[in-house]
């Protein structure tokens, strides 16, 4: 028991120490400062074979076996360098933030690139899994993703990302742990609100849905117009940007409110709101979001939609975060525009 406790506390200390090492950044270049190197089990086994060979060479005074031992020994020594050089200069950067709904599988996206050399036999791993070997051609970018799995809504950060390689012979392993600033946002799952609650106390009757074209008038595009309202067919034929102007010249403002779903659990409310946000943004209407502790003023467009969804995802801190991925609401606020 004591041993177990001791081991546990040691491993906790170790992981705390490792967690404290190195800063979080969106891009890393591998080099002496962040690559670790050590023989693998297979490497130690190989050394054991070499020692056996050396004993054979000594006992039978066999020069040729000495030669083989020296040749393989020198290769072992060189392979330390080759193993390091293989990773050296590899650039690891955070890829696009992945956005998923709670019922879907998410992933952290990263980009690996080496501008000068081919990189062979790479494995990358997070706590959630390990990849197969992959290789990288000089100058080409390789997008990799580390799965998040199905998780509760929230914003997740990749805590540690490991890259390793035992190139060339599997005797030596070079690896690195990086705190890459890769994010995965998990939105609430989408739940259609019940029919009776449609129109939910907004300032305006349900005006979603694109009006048929014959009732619309066309006017020229102004800055601020929703792209979804541009009459693209017209643009294709006349190269004039015209906007389908529905009956209301100034579209009315929807407010999606927390309080509209009185009596539902908060997760359910978030799911309803999520569905509403998607519906409205598809329709191109202008809407605002009002949930406890956060209000987003009415706007439109995909950026607006994402920030609304992000707010929904962030609402309250739910669920214990796994060790690798952690929930960090304070950081999200600072980077709302992601």
């Amino acid at each position, binding site marked *: 028991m004591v041993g177990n406790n001791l081991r546990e506390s040691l*491993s906790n200390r*170790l*992981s705390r120490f*490792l967690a404290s090492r190195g800063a979080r950044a969106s891009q890393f270049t591998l080099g002496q400062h962040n690559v670790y190197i050590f023989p*693998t*089990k*297979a490497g130690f*086994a*190989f050394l054991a*074979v070499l020692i*056996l*060979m050396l*004993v*054979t*060479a*000594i*006992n*039978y*005074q*066999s*020069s*040729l*076996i*000495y*030669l*083989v*031992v*020296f*040749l*393989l*020994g*020198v*290769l072992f*020594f*060189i392979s330390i*360098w080759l193993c390091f*050089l293989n990773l*050296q*200069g590899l650039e690891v950067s955070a890829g696009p933030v992945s956005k998923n709904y709670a019922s879907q599988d998410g992933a952290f996206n990263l980009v690996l690139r080496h*501008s*000068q050399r081919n990189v*062979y*036999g790479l*494995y990358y*791993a997070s*706590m959630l899994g*390990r990849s*197969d*070997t*992959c*290789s990288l051609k*000089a*100058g080409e970018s390789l997008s990799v993703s580390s799965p998040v799995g199905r998780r509760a809504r929230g914003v997740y950060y990749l805590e540690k990302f490991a890259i*390793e*390689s*035992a*190139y*060339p*012979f*599997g005797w030596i392993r070079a690896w690195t742990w990086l705190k890459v600033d890769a994010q995965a946002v998990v939105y609430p799952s989408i739940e259609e609100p019940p029919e009776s609650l449609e129109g939910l106390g907004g300032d305006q009757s349900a005006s979603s849905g694109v009006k048929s074209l014959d009732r619309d008038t066309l006017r020229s595009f102004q800055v601020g117009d929703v792209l979804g309202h541009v009459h693209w067919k017209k643009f294709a034929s006349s190269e004039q940007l015209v906007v389908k102007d529905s009956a209301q010249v100034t579209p009315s403002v929807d407010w999606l409110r927390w309080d509209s779903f009185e009596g539902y659990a908060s997760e359910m409310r978030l799911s309803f709101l999520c569905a509403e946000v998607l519906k409205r943004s598809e329709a191109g209407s202008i809407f605002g979001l009002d949930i406890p502790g956060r209000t987003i003023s009415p706007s439109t467009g995909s950026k607006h939609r994402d920030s609304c969804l992000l707010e929904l995802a962030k609402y309250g801190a739910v669920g214990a975060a796994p060790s690798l991925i952690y929930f960090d609401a304070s950081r999200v606020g600072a980077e709302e525009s992601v």
Partner: protein
Amino acid sequence: MIDLHAQVASKSKAPIESFSGWPTIYVLGLAQALSMWGIAPVWLVICLVLIVVALWLRPGGFPAPLRFLVTLAMVAWFFLYYRLNFTVEVAGSFLWLSATLKLLELKTRKDLTVFVYVMLYVAAVSLLFYQSIAHVALQCVVILLALSILLRLQVGPSYRPVAHFGSLARLLVFSIPVVVVLFAFFPRISPLWSMPIKSGAASTGISDSMSPGDIADLANSDERAFRASFVGERPTRSELYWRGLVLDEFDGRRWSRGAPNKGFRYGGKYDIGSLVDSEGDYYQVMLEAHNRDWLFTLEGSRSLSSHIEMADMGLYELPVEALQATRYRMARDRPEPVGLQLPGAYKLDNVSRSKSYRGRDLQTPAGGNPRTRAYMRDLRQTMPNDVDLVSAVLKKFRVEDFSYTLKPPFLGKHFVDEFIFDSKQGFCSHYAGSMAFMLRAAGIPARVVVGYQGGEYVSDGDYYIVRQYDAHGWVEANLKGLGWVRIDPTASVAPSRVEQNLQEAVSEEGTFLQDNVFASLRHEVAFLAWVSLKTDQLNYQWQKYVVNYGQDEQYGLIKKLLGEYSLARVAIVLGGLFGVVSLLIVGWMFWRIERPELNVRQKRYLRWLSILRWFGYSRPVGETPRAFLARMNGNAHPWLVAQTDSRTRELEQRDYQNGDQ
């Protein structure tokens, strides 16, 4: 961190279905079979080759029951064959067998790694048995294949056989200088223990018994018995009597070695020993592995080697059978000719045996060969002097129509009688065996000595090759007033055998290497003879300088290079090597990191700039190629300007149009 390690460990258990390098594995299996040919028993080699081929043809592998059956059968056969013999041969064969059987169920990366490691060790062990350049080249291939499998395992699907194999070979070539230094300076330690290398290997060359016709069989082989090089005066051909064994027991037909004085076999370690430098003349022998413990030395030799032992009657022996090529060095006093008294005979020192065994040199079988006995009795009565008697016997051989032949007629029960009085055709074994018996019948202590006579001199390498067809038998007799002398009756019958060689001696008969097509081709086609001689020379140098590089040679080399032999100096050299190599690697690394990868056009442009520098035009840092061109335009030779212009344009156009850096 702990979790990550757990994953690393599980990586080795990952299945290798996606591994695409199976042909390499099978080629490795077959190459290893080739190198085990002659080490492992023939049935084992054939079975394992069949298994590998079957696996290659049936990628799905064997069904489980068959797999089990094959494994069980092979292992059972192996143990029935070898029983509980424990030698390196058995251990090596068993490792090889189990690694090859592992191929039957190669499931994980770990399995494959184990297979490769065992194959590497087996490759090393096989070098205990064969040391020729060809075998070493084969082992290089095995090692290269093994490493390529490991590499492929790491690189995965993007492995490009040609490119990666090339870079692997390059890696090996680059490491050769370091390997050479390590080889020369790494301290050689005396053997700690040794277990016997081979179990019951077939021996080659002369054996310890001789019936009529035995040596004639060897005359059909041009295999090498040993090589010898002389420091100081080179002996004449007729001096080269290489004594191997004394045969002193005669049963009326067969001469054999009485109980050898030395009883212990497998007692010693496989020590290549040290050689003592000598002020005077000496010679060095590189004995091929003949799987026996006797050595071949010239008459009057004294040992200059620590690992060989002097046996009775001036013979030398190894503590263990010569299962590997073995070298030894001897000093030599030339035997003195007896002179006119007995032409062709030489006085020998130090060949008498311990007193209690002296009776052996007069032993004759109880009965048989009555005619010879009667003849010798009569001769003895007329000639009380030993020398006269020997002369008479030699004269009989010379004067009567005795002939020297490789195809003697078959002789019956009274072999000496039939030979001396009837057939009169024989090979050296007939003459030596008969004469020794005749002398014993006359009361003169005599014995047959077998070994080799002569050798082919290779003038390029300044050494002799002694081949199996140089095998020879002659007589040593203890004559009153002279002591032990060497008498070669064959020389009386066929002087060309001793003065030239066997080929000359039987040239009329045309039987030289008659039954050995390849050997006779090698001798008769000039080109083949030249190639075989050159190959031998190369192998000889290889054996001399590489295979037999030991403590002594290391001592000599270090003394020559570093002034004195001390572990501290060796440590400094090795440490220095380590440092230099590390520095080189680090330097190369930084050179590689700092240097941007240039494309062909950029390299061409930079080359052109370095040419222009010869003409006195240089582009300062910061000046664009175009500005440089403009500056050139005014004051350089038009041809230079034109060249610069075209290169500049090439540089700009391609780089900026295609953007393919």
